[in-house]
Each structure stands twice: as C-alpha cells, then as structure tokens.
C-alpha cells in the first residue's frame, strides 16, 4: 500500500497513517469476543481485570503494525509519522474526557509516571522555598503504594509533611468519605500550614471504592487547597470521565486497564493555567521546555506503539452496543450482580453499595477463613491461583482500635475482601468457580493458618 502511494508520486513522508486493514463492521458477537481474547490463558477464572487490564487481539494487531512501521524505517517514522500518530491519540482522548484543549493532554507510560511528574514539581517548590517546610500534602490512607512512595521520595525528603485521610471501609455513603476528607483538610491546615496538594483517587485500588470526586475537588477549592491531583488509574473505561466537571488541576488514567490498550499507556491531563505550570517529564530529552505533551512524546528511543493505537481502540469499542458507555454499564451491572451472588452464597457483604462500585466490587470473605494479615491475604490469593485457577486479589482489612467491623452470617468478623472485576471477556462461570472454591475451603475447615503453601 505504501509503495503504491510512492509510485503515484506521493512522498512517503505524507503517509502517516498505519496501513489500513479491511474494516470489520457490525456488532461483535460472543464468539467474536472469545476470539479477541483467545490469547488469555484458558481454564483460568480471570476476575482481576483491575490490576493489569486486557487488550483484544485486533488492537494487538494494530499495535504490531505500528511496531513494524517503526522497525521498517525508524528515522522516517521519527521525523514524519510519530508525532502525528501521537497527536491523533491525544485528540481522541481529549474529546473523550471533555478537555478544553488537546495541549492539556499528555501521554505517559502509566499513572505511576504521572504521580512522579506532579510530585517532582511539588518537591521543587519545597526545595526552592516557594512552599514552607511543613506545608502539607493530603491523601487517602489507601492511596496506591507507588504514589505513597513517590510522596516519600519527592515531598517528605524535602521537608513537606503529609496527612493521610482514612477511608472508611466498608463504606455506605459518599457522605462518610466527604466528612473524613474535610477532617483531613483541617488537619492539613492546622498551625498555619497550607495544603499544597490534595491527591484524590477517582476509584481507589484496594479497597476498591468509587469516590465522590467532584464533591471532594469542590471542597478542596472552597478550603483553599492549592492544587488537586486526581489519581484515576482505573477510571477511563470504568466511569464517565469529564475533566472540566471534575475540575482538578491534574488527572491521570491508565488506558491499558479498562480501555483495551496494550501495556502501557496513560493520559495525563494538566489544566491550562495562565502562568507556566512547571511540570516536566523526569526523563529529560532535547524536547525539555517545549511543554509536557511534547516532552512526553519523546523520552528517548522507545517503543511508542501502545500510545499510537488509541484510534484503533475507539473502533473496537464502537463495535459494542452503546460503545464504551454500554460496556461500562454492562460491566458495572454484571460485577454487582456477581458480587451480590457471592455475598449471598458466603453470607457476607459488599464493601460498598452498588452506586459506589464500577466494574469492580469488593465482597467480604467468610470469617472462618481467618485472614489475619496481609501475608494471609497473599497466601490465600496464591492458593486460589494455583489450586483453583482463580485469579482474584484479596484485601486484608486491618481494623483499628475502636472500629467495630462487620460480621458475617456466622457472626464472625469479616477481615478480608476479594475484589472481583468484570470485563467483556468474563463469564458467569468465572465467579461461580470463585464461589465454589471459597465455599469448599470453608467446608473443609481450611484457614489461612492451615492452608498449605503453594
């Protein structure tokens, strides 16, 4: 195809699009979906889309085409194809998330990278005296561990202090979260300090809860928080994302989790400000100073193919009824349905009401399993993987003094939850397998203490 264009006198430098394949039309059937995910290991109840996401075969193929295009003539691709391809991806995303300007959208490897970008900037402000020592960063206690470490590396190291807001869990309403957050902000401002940054998860990871992010950002504005960073690693493809409505300064979401991109790609939204925003990619290239979108578009020789397939992913999701919105609704409804099925079978509970779930739900594990530590949770997870071919993350809920906790049907304290995910490739049997595995373990009087190592 490319050589045809050249014979017609077009310069190769004008051919920026990946070679077009015959376009598939019509809605995908169930067997089409099976075929798209045929590379998933068969025989595994893969109910943990939340951790590493998934990528359909047709998008992987589109990715391979981009890879080959680069390998075929990398210089030409570097000078001619790459930037336009990345701009096309950024434009799709910008429209999807209702950003004002595509310049507000950068592509980075993952949310972890975006966190480093924000926190490096905050760290510089502390180092350079813009912020007073002891000014605060406020976040939730269940913030993703990498983000916490990033705060340690960039903020604590230079004297900034942190306030952790404890997320109530199990949780029953948004108000519970909002009131805790207000308390946290007050603490952050105590003794004349300024809250320089609030980090809010749109959807917390473990335990998994859909947060009232719009309200929380509003409160931040009301209470004079300088900047708000929403860590929405799970958001795009899970919930509607409208960055103007949410109103944060920084917003990041991974596209390889719930938006069918291959590993790895995230978009990082930075609201345009009047003044120089001083965010930079930590891997500095010759593009330094040209704005984050341009800096991020070249961080040295890399395989950028996962960032180039976003338009192909839109084609894919539009082969589902209702497009990405339809997928989100169905994932949510099925995850809740399966969650209720499991809670009923085990006599336990959901970690949050359905309206505070996305395509992921937390379900209490029977107290009889005696999950008493993070190590127990890991042990149980491995056991489920190896003995039952069930992949599901297990969360240990360490109750603090004074916290009552929730009891299951055996009147035992629920100390652990599984986080089930539902994505388009999942089937009811996946969750039934989990249900039966846990039921069997309880029946056999297995506990985390007597569970054999695998």
């Amino acid at each position, binding site marked *: 195809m490319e050589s045809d264009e050249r014979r017609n006198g077009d310069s190769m430098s004008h051919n920026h699009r990946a070679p077009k394949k015959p376009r598939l039309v019509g809605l995908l059937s169930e067997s089409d979906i099976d075929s798209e995910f045929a590379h998933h290991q068969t025989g595994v109840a893969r109910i943990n889309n939340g951790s590493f996401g998934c990528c359909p075969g047709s998008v992987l193929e589109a990715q391979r085409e981009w890879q080959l295009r680069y390998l075929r003539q990398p210089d030409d691709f570097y000078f001619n194809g790459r930037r336009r391809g990345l701009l096309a991806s950024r434009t799709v995303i910008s429209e999807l998330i209702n950003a004002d300007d595509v310049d507000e959208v950068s592509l980075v490897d993952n949310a972890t990278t975006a966190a480093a970008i924000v926190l490096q900037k905050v760290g510089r402000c502390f180092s350079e005296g813009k912020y007073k020592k002891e000014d605060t960063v406020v976040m939730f206690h269940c913030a993703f561990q*990498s983000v916490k470490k990033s705060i340690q590396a960039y903020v604590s190291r230079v004297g900034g202090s942190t306030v952790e807001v404890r997320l109530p869990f199990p949780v029953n309403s948004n108000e519970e979260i909002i009131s805790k957050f207000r308390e946290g902000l007050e603490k952050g401002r105590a003794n004349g300090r300024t809250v320089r940054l609030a980090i809010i998860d749109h959807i917390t990871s473990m335990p998994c809860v859909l947060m009232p992010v719009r309200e929380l950002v509003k409160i931040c504005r009301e209470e004079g928080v300088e900047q708000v960073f929403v860590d929405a690693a799970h958001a795009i493809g899970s919930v509607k994302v409208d960055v103007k409505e949410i109103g944060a300064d920084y917003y990041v979401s991974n596209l390889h989790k719930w938006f069918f991109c291959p590993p790895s790609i995230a978009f990082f939204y930075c609201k345009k400000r009047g003044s120089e925003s001083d965010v930079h990619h930590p891997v500095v290239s010759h593009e330094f100073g040209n704005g984050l979108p341009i800096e991020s578009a070249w961080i040295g020789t890399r395989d950028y193919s996962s960032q180039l397939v976003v338009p192909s992913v839109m084609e894919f999701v539009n082969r589902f009824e209702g497009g990405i919105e339809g997928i989100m609704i169905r994932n949510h409804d099925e995850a809740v349905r399966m969650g209720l099925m499991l809670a009923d079978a085990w006599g336990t509970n959901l970690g949050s009401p359905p309206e505070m779930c996305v395509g992921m739900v937390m379900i209490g594990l029977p107290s009889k399993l005696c999950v008493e530590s993070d190590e127990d949770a890991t042990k149980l997870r491995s056991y489920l993987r190896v003995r039952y071919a069930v992949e599901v993350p297990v969360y240990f809920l360490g109750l603090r003094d004074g916290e009552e906790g929730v009891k299951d049907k055996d009147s035992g304290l629920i100390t652990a939850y599984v986080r089930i995910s539902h994505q388009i490739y999942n089937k009811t049997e996946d969750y039934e397998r989990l249900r039966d595995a846990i039921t069997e373990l309880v029946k056999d009087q297995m506990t985390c203490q007597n569970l054999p190592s695998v």
Partner: protein
Amino acid sequence: MASSLSPPEKASYHHRHSKRYSSSTNGNVESSSVSDFIKRPKISPQNYISCSEIESEFSHHDPEFARINNGSFGCCPSSILALQRDWQLRFLRQPDRFYFDELKPKISDSRSVIKRLINADHDDEVSIVDNATTAAAIVLQQTAWAFREGRFDKGDAVVMLHYAYGSVKKSVEAYVTRSGGHVIEVQLPFPVNSADEIIDRFRIGLESGKANGRRVRLALIDHVTSMPSVVIPIKELVKICRRECVDQVFVDAAHGIGCVDVDMKEIGADFYTSNLHKWFFAPPSVAFLYCRKSSNGGVPDLHHPVVSNEYGNGLAVESSWVGTRDYSAQLVVPSILEFVNRFEGGIDGIKKRNHESVVEMGHMLVKSWGTQLGCPPEMCASMIMVGLPACLGVSSDSDVLKLRTFLREKFRIEIPIYFTPPGDGEIDPITGYVRISFQVYNKPEDYHRLRDAINELVRDGFRCASLSG
C-alpha cells in the same frame, strides 16, 4: 490460540545449562573476563549464519532504502522480534501470574547476562532501564539532590563534552543547573587528528572546573560521541579524572555495547550506561546503567525517577518495576547472545568486521568526493564521519536537516549529516559531514548509492540554499 511453553523459557534454560560457557554445573558463570563469558561454541564455518539468513533476519527493513544510519535507532533481527512477541504474549496470557512468578527472576537473568558481558563484579551493579536518556536522568538527579541538600556547594562544577548528546545537555540543565551546579562544556576539535587532542582539551576543561576553589563533582563523558561521532579515549580521561579528584565519572556510552569494548573494570568509571537496541540487536528499547560498588560495598544513592512500591530497594530492583509496562525488550536479552554467537567471532567478530567495513566505505567515499574523514580510523568504531564536497554549500544546521530529508525523499538514503562551521580563513571548507554506520545487514551497494547521489548533486551544481522548507 492458547500458547504452549514458549521459546523464551527454552532459551533461558539453554543459557543456564549450555556447555558453551566456562560454567560450573549449577549454572553460575564464574568468568574472570568478558571473553570467557562470550566464548562461542565450536561452530564450524558452514554453520555460521549465512548471508541469506542475515537478509532474512532483516527482511522487515524497508528494501528500498540505503539504511546507513544504524547509529540512530539500531536494528533488531526478526528472530529476536519473534521471541519478544512470545514474552509479550506470556504477560498478556496471565499477567498476575507473570508478575508474581516470572518477571523479577527473568529480569535478573537479563541483568546477569549483561553483568558478565561488561565484566562487572556484582549483579547489583547492573540496572536495566529504557535507554541512556533515562540513565542520564537517574545519575543527574542524584547530583541535583547533592546540590539541593548541601553536600555540594553551589557553583561546584559538572564537566561535560561540548559534543554531549542534546538530551543529556538538557538533562544537565534540568537537574544540575536548576539545583545550583555550574556546568562546563569542554570544546573538542573536529575534525580531530589524535586522541591527544581530546585529552589535552579535557585537561583544560577540568582545570577551569576547579578554578576559584570549586570542586568538580561529576565528569560526564561520552564513550562514542553522537554528532560528530568520534571514539573518545575514555580510559585515559577516567584516569585523569581520578588524578584530579573528580568526585564521580559518568560515561554515556549510548553507542557502547556491540560497538566498542565495554569492560567496566578496565574503564573504571563510577557510572556507565549503554543502549542495547543500537548495536546489540535488542528491540526498542533497553539499556543498562552500571553503578560501581565502592570498596566498602556501598552504592551511591541512586533512584529511578518513576517511583514505585520498590522505592528504596536499590536501583536495580526499583528499575525492574516502574509500574505496568511492557518489559519484553528487557526479557529477550539472554536470547540475543545466541543470535550474535551465530556469527563468526560472536559480538567481537561483528564489531571487528563492522569497523573494517565502515572504514573501507569511508575511504571509498573520501576518494570519490575528494574530501576527508572526520577522524583517523583508529578513533572510530562502527560509524565514521565523511566530509561532503564543499561545493554543496552546507552552511547551517537547517541546511543539513533539509539535505538529509532530500536524500531520504529523493534518493531513499537514510543518513544523518553534521554541520561544522568553517575555521577562520579556511578556503573551500568542508562544513558538512555524513555519519555512515555499518551493521551486519549493510552492503557496499548502500554506500555506492550515497556516493553516486552526492556525485550527481555535485554534477548538477546543487546547492543546499536551493532546498525549501
């Protein structure tokens, strides 16, 4: 298509248990030198990779192009690409299991292979990162912290070569200048006639770094400069740094492994980085950053800038998990050794033949164009700078970019071009140099095409000024 046990598993098994290496039975290779490790099996000449097999391995390259710029983006044979895909599929198949059971040990395997290739002492000294640009950010961030935290005085110096790579210069600006360090660029001559010219200039640069009671905290030296490309006498420069009490030496050897001899103990730097996707046949992208352990076993406090839950566990472990990524390029490294050992002399043989060929082609072009090389043959590895005829009228950086585009679009030749301003009073100065590379897939015809294209332009009275854009 549920995949069965994929080749990567077999390949790494083969490495650990192959009798090729002077190894003990438990698979640990106790090698005292690089050459011990890369000992090749006794392959008879008939079993070396053939010309048609090489063509096949690079059949995904655009056949229309004279691809004489391996230096910029490197290359990757299709058998390695296939193995890389297997690794990608292995992750996609069951990512949690892969993450918990396989990723870390397999990255350790890659690090071990690199450690032995570069003659480092400990696996801990070897971290795998995306590219040299990332390695530079890691080292320079450490320097920035020292300035910010008062361990270095404001105004203490970082010395680097004027020909340092553009991205590295920006990184120095972003991390060092911003935190209060003073940057000194050592001007190097070009064209250059001998290693001594470089050594002398470097000494002068260090002197100025130490002026006014300052300390030179970091010397940042290229092993092979990018543009213009010259092999720097790195061992001598490191020795001078030690004598002159430079705190740390960081060697940017983006063009290192597979191009020049890379022996950490011989070179003696504190930090050394090299891309494997340029000259070591890795897919994009993978590089190593070597950090020398001090005599008391300590390591400098380096951190990957993308902080994950592994923060604080040492750079190698931090770098092995920087969030969800495609780590497949890092995982194929053991397989690459198998590929290079299909060539006579293995990687050493490839380096030697690349060097001889690029010099031969350089001489051929010089003779045809009546120009000169940018440096003597012993100061080049697998790339060489060849002067363009002065009559082409190359007079700016913009000219060389336009001329490069013109050669690409009109002649299907891919070649980077360097502009060097004429010296005072120079008559008919050579202001443009092409940087030709030679890698295993190249053929003399590639360079004949360049020769003929330039000669055609000369005959037609072509001037860079006539190019638009």
